[in-house]
């Protein structure tokens, strides 16, 4: 470095190594060394973050490029978005296989450009031709308010789709049971399920009139096979009100 110009760093100044690392100006062993320093040296890591936050705004000038749909499939598979066979009792049995055996559900989510997960889910479910009753959507939250499941109810077909947002395994020797709680009514069972992937349930026709705005979906912990009393016996781990989209 020439010491002759006014903006030459003072001798005591450090080289802008963090910025060089962020930009990728050095490669090979030098880059490896900086990568290691980033892990080991907190101040250097802070410097890297400083530059990433500033220089990263240049990406605004980069043209977005088309992304083929299969990329999302690969990501979904790698992060454990694998759909699982249903273990929903009775009504949903005929729904086994088909779409849940494939990655179509997640492909659909990946393609949908909507900002709302709920909207994406419904796009996948059905694109209505005639004006049907609007689908219902609910975010089922844990007692601490954390969103644990997203659910949609297609009121044309009675299909209830339940998607775990986080891992909420049932205790050993127990299972989860899904309930529709009508406004001012008592809970009605939609079946038991294993919460390790998307679940599709067919709501019995006689329950459909109760599925409306402000009715709730709730999930309780039950003995294997489900509640024998017709009402939730274990703790309700997640619940949420339904809203029209």
């Amino acid at each position, binding site marked *: *470095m*020439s010491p002759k110009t006014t*903006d*030459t*760093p003072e001798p005591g100044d450090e*080289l*802008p190594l963090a*910025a*060089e690392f*962020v*930009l*990728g*100006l*050095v*490669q*090979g062993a030098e*880059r*490896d060394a900086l990568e290691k320093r980033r892990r080991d040296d907190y101040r250097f890591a802070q410097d890297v*973050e400083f530059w*990433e*936050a*500033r*220089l*990263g*705004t*240049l*990406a*605004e*000038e*980069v*043209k*977005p*490029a*088309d*992304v083929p749909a299969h*990329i*999302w499939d*690969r*990501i*979904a598979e*790698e*992060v*454990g*978005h694998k759909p699982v066979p249903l273990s929903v009792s009775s009504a949903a049995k005929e729904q086994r296989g088909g779409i849940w055996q494939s990655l179509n559900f*997640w492909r659909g*989510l*990946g393609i949908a*450009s*909507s*900002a709302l*997960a709920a909207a*994406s889910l419904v796009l996948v479910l059905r694109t209505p031709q005639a004006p049907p009753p609007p689908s219902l959507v609910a975010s089922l939250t844990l007692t601490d308010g*954390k*969103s644990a499941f*997203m659910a949609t109810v297609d009121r044309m077909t009675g299909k209830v789709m339940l*998607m*775990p*947002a*986080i*891992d909420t395994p049932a205790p050993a020797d127990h299972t989860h049971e899904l309930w529709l709680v009508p406004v001012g009514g008592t809970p009605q069972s939609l079946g038991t399920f294993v919460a390790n992937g998307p679940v599709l349930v067919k709501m019995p026709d006689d329950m459909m009139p109760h599925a409306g705005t402000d009715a709730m979906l709730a999930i309780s912990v039950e003995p294997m096979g489900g509640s024998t009393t017709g009402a939730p016996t274990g703790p309700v781990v997640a619940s949420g009100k339904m809203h029209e989209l």
Partner: protein
Amino acid sequence: MAFYSPLPMTMTRSDASISLAARLQAVGRGDRAALAEVYNSTSPKLMGVCLRILGERSEAEDVLQETYVTVWRRAGTFDPAKASAITWLVAVARNKALDRIRSGKVRRASTPLEDAGEIVDPARSALDEVEGADDRRALIGCLEELDDDQKWSIRTAFFDGVTYEELAARRGVPLGTMKSWVRRGLMKLRGCLEQ
């Protein structure tokens, strides 16, 4: 962009930025639906970033995949006080792309991607405009204080992810000259950004 209130009172476009950060934080808590949303709203941009650096579509696609798998695992470390969600995501993508070059799997053309031209994206999304708007204004202002060689070198290094050696070759200047341009430029930039 004066209409962006720091405290959005209504459903303005500011909400788009708040929710991207919120969604990224949700990914950090293991929210799979949030990952799909973050992917939907940001993957074309990150694809553009990777493609520009790697120059080859199949490589860029692989790196894009690695990027979102890494986002899934590391989103818990995203701190909205330090970076906007989009710059955090861009940093993950660029690092993955640079790692790919480091691994020797990619043999890039040594010439600039002329077809990419001057990179400006005329149809910037609301998200881009909101995210990191203050950081971006500061950076653009400070870059303007650098001389043209410094500015060109730093911008090209960012967009193309190229080394000092490649920058020097492209400009036909000795390596030492290029290092000097860039380092002085970066020091000046840092001083300006910290003011």
